């Protein structure tokens, strides 16, 4: 469905955002794209949307080389790609139903088709009762459901999600994830960039990890990082090499939770790590553990 063939992308005057990425995502797969901020996840998604063009290599979506696609065909590519973002991107002056309908209106679908399809997709995301509400009357989770409905209403081949749970609490995130999982079961390929360790670890889907633009891990049924392999015995998955940046993050976590002694081979601890940062990482990991405990 999506194939990257030795893709390199360099933004003007910077180091490469993506370096020699080669991978393939099959139709119907559910793939997590993980990596720290600036690792190239968003660039990866932008390349698929043809918001950016690769400097080297080729990208195929549904068998077509989108790098050579002429500009006027790009809209037709995007009709096959649904998109969901961390900040929802709903239109505040339109109702829920209008927001979803807008996606069909602007690609010139007939009114009757719009009415039935919008009703269907709102039922799918569980917002059939709130069709005439305004976005600001909804909770964050509900707004993200509307955004997913909008992305999915045209039945795209691929659903791209850029940190869809980034603004949501863990419980709400779970709801969003089960919705994405349902959508994936209809045959739609889902590619989700995320920082959410808990979600990645609990879903056990294919994980692609980027670090500073390079592909460092591509693992079927993977987890976010190695945290759990090292510190818990719940997983029987083989250990995979750790990215330096993630090892650093892990060190911070370990230090704060008093487990730094477990990995002596890691990078030296840095003392200038902002406490808030480290604290965030720590609490995220522990909240994950709590949830995992209840799940497995």
């Amino acid at each position, binding site marked *: 469905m999506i194939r990257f063939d030795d893709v390199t992308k360099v933004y003007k005057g910077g180091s490469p955002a993506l370096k020699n990425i080669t991978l393939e995502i099959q139709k119907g797969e559910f793939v997590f794209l993980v990596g720290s901020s600036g690792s190239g996840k968003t660039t990866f998604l932008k390349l698929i949307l043809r918001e950016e063009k690769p400097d080297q290599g080729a990208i195929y979506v549904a068998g077509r080389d989108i790098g050579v696609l002429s500009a006027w065909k790009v809209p037709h590519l995007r009709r096959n790609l649904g998109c969901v973002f961390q900040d929802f991107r709903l239109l505040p002056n339109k109702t829920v139903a209008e927001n979803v309908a807008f996606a069909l209106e*602007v690609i010139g679908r007939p009114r009757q088709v719009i009415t039935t399809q919008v009703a269907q997709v709102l039922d799918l995301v569980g917002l059939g009762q709130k069709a005439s509400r305004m976005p600001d009357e909804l909770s964050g989770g509900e707004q993200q459901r509307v955004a997913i409905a909008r992305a999915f209403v045209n039945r795209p081949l691929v659903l791209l999600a850029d940190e869809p749970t980034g603004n949501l609490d863990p419980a709400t995130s779970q709801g969003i994830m089960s919705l994405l999982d349902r959508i994936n079961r209809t045959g739609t390929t889902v590619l989700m960039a995320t920082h959410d360790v808990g979600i990645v670890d609990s879903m056990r889907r294919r994980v692609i990890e980027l670090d500073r633009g390079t592909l460092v891990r591509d693992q079927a049924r993977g987890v976010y990082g190695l945290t759990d392999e090292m510190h818990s015995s719940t997983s029987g998955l083989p250990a995979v090499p750790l990215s330096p940046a993630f090892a650093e993050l892990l060190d911070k976590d370990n230090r704060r939770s008093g487990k730094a002694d477990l990995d002596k081979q890691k990078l030296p601890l840095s003392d200038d790590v902002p406490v808030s940062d480290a604290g965030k990482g720590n609490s995220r990991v522990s909240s994950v553990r709590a949830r995992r405990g209840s799940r497995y």
Partner: protein
Amino acid sequence: MGLSVEYVAKETATNLWRNRLMALAAILTVAVSLSLVGTALLLRQAVNRQIGAVASNVNLQIFVNPGAPKSQLAYIRQEIKATPQIESCNYLNSTESYNQAKQLLKGQKTVLSVLSPGTVPTDFRCQLHNPNQAATVGALFSAGIPGVYKVTWPGQSIHVMEQVTSVLQLILLIVAIALLVSSLVLILNAIRMAIFSRRREVSVMKLVGATNWFIRIPFMAEGLVQGFLGSLVAVGIVMLSNWGLSYLSDRVQALSQATVPSGDLLVTEILVVLVGLIVGVVGSSVAVRKFLDV
């Protein structure tokens, strides 16, 4: 593509209403500049007609000093007869000249009070075989024939008239072009604001795969409507100035022929509307190309 007229009309109307102040500024500037363009065109047509009328009437006018002795008058008559280019002449004596002057200067009481039959120059009105020879014949008579006060031929007055109106027209046109450019810029800016205020919609539209034209056309229609509305106002103002012109030509003898037939007026108005539409489309196209990144 499924870009329905209804959709464009709805989008354009809401856009215009949202940015109504900017739209109003753009429409008014278009209106003012197009009124000037239209008025300049009208003026030119009126002057051309007046000049045509004057030129076909009298070819040469020889004014004789008021109270010139009979002998001088007779000499002038003799000279006229001796000039082969002159076909015929008609002499207006002092009373007739005075009456004519009274008619010409109707309404100007102070000037009239100074005039009397004895102080108005009498004149010969001559037809030439060939009106183009007026200058040569005129030079012949103005050079040293006793009693001749002045010789005029329409060529002179037409020349003056043409010069005055062409300067006037030039000024009007320069001002109008400057205003047209500024109205173009105003429309461009109005569309730019519209694009900015709808950037969320535009980004969603791009995301879900709306075609470029689908996104662009409502904005271009907005510019078109602004240009059109401005030109409609200008059409009204040009009608008013045409009415003023015919009012003047009814009352001022020198402009008696300076009217514009309704056919020409219609052509002028159509031109005004066309220019308005062009300004609107060009302004909005530039804005869409520069600021709508699709």
